[in-house]
């Protein structure tokens, strides 16, 4: 599904991501873990086209997306969420989601001026898609609520829904469970499983080990930009290199 070959990103003299190769299978939950500053978010930024890699290749379903611009990568089916999602606070949840489907539409300013059939059709489709995504994440009841009035967990779900509204094949979730309580974390984990059940591929960065170990099919461990381990939760948990990386650096992982 997503194949990365010898990916390297240099920021000046610092290798934020150093010669990482990995193959994330379709229809799986793939987790990326590692201490703070290990290059996890940079790795996501490289895949989604936000940063250009210094060297290496990224293949999405066999298509080379290495130097593609972010919006093109998104059109090819890469959805993503961020650690913090800035939404339009004084607009409703639904209104915030409608734009998610924009990349599948064509209407421009001229369509707006003459209120073309195409615009009407596309707006209807975008609205339906938003509702569908909202239903998927279980927030239909909050459709008309302002983002400003949503809880942290609901915001996370809205962010998921926004990524889903782009009709992705693979979603990159950057710390989806940060800042929510254990029960809510459980709920979000369920949601990720549901995504996979519905044919999506999930990649996530997360520090909550309990959750990761419970849901991930495959884990990649990054440290100082390098891949130090890869495998099933069981394999990774017992890998001495991983244990050392965590205990030897900081203990953020325990959080």
């Amino acid at each position: 599904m997503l194949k990365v070959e010898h990916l390297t990103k240099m920021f000046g003299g610092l290798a934020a991501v150093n010669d990482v190769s990995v193959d994330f299978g379709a229809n799986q939950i793939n987790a990326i873990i590692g201490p703070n500053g290990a290059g996890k978010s940079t790795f996501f930024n490289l895949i989604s086209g936000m940063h250009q890699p210094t060297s290496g290749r990224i293949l999405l379903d066999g298509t080379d997306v290495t130097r593609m611009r972010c919006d093109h990568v998104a059109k090819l089916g890469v959805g993503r969420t961020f650690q913090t999602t800035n939404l339009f606070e004084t607009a409703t949840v639904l209104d915030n989601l409608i734009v998610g489907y924009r990349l599948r539409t064509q209407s421009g300013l001229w369509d707006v001026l003459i209120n073309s059939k195409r615009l009407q059709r596309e707006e209807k489709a975008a609205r339906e898609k938003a509702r569908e995504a909202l239903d998927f994440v279980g927030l239909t009841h909050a459709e008309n609520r302002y983002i400003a009035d949503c809880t942290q967990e609901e915001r996370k779900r809205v962010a998921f829904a926004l990524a889903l509204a782009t009709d992705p094949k693979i979603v990159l979730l950057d710390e989806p469970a940060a800042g929510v309580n254990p029960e809510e974390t459980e709920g979000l984990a369920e949601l990720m499983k549901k995504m996979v059940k519905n044919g999506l591929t999930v990649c996530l960065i997360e520090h909550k080990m309990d959750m990761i170990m419970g849901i991930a099919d495959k884990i990649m461990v990054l440290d100082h930009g390098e891949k130090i381990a890869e495998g099933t939760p069981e394999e990774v948990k017992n890998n001495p290199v991983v244990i050392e990386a965590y205990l030897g650096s900081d203990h953020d992982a325990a959080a």
Partner: protein
Amino acid sequence: MMFKLGALLMHPASKYVLLALALVFPALASNEYQVYVMATAFIWAIAVYGFNVITGFCGQLNLAHGGFFAIGAYTVALLTSDAGWNFWPAFVAALLLTAVLGLLVGAVSLRLKEHYFAIFTLCVGFIIYLLLDKWEELTHGALGVRNIAAPDGFGLVNFRETMPLYYLVLFFLVFIIWFTSRIQKSLVGRTFVAIRNGDELAESLGINLMKTKIVAFVISTTYAGLAGALYAGMIRFVGPEDGNVLHTFNMIMYMLVGGIGTLFGPLVGTVGIVWITQSLQFLEEYRMIIFGPLLVVLVIFFPLGVCGSFLTWMHRKAQALGLGPKKVQTESKVKTSSQEASNNA
């Protein structure tokens, strides 16, 4: 009670009430000067609508906005007085020129983000001012341009008179509000707002940042050019001071007070402040003593501006009352009606 009143203002029919009020305003005004002030306010409001598209919707603080207003005004001024064109061809030329310049300036300046963009456009605005002031062969320098043609009338309608001019400006204002509401409600407007929420998120949603920002920029400069062109046809004199960066900051104030990013914010803010300024005229320089604190209070307690605060309040109230899906997007016009009413009094 307050809620019911608010609901009344948000009713779709209230915009026709507002339009009707604007239409009968000249009859209610006690003198021609008031009509003239109102027409000027409407012209500024058109420019502020443009500002609202790039800054309110799309989140890019374009401090060259006043400069584009001046370019629109000077285009009409120079083409009619020096080149002897009629008003309307010059008017169209002003729109085209501000659109093309918007495209060029946007393509360069929008490569920058946030504060850098604001600072860069501030410089662009100042350069425009300097060109108007110093390029004497073309712009007549500090002398300004006189003998600008008034909009050509038809039949008995003569746009040299205040009343017909008022209706002409009102016509364009209504068109601009209508078009802006179309944009706001459409996918195009939503794309602008996505960029305001954040470049990174917008990009990850598959939005072409540069293209979208340039579209918003060109819309905004064209609105400014339209306002400037009308201004030249109305005042019939332009000088380099019309390109003063100060005007841009005035427009920011109108927009903030009315409600940034709302459909009726620019109208409420512009008309409201123009009239407050008028009524404080007797204080001369000292009016800032009242005006300043008023503005500070407003920004602290109503950061969303008059319209933004009103809409938010209405929405929360409706949600609390369990009134089900309330269409907030269909915006309210509000307040101006009471504003106009008090002016008429």
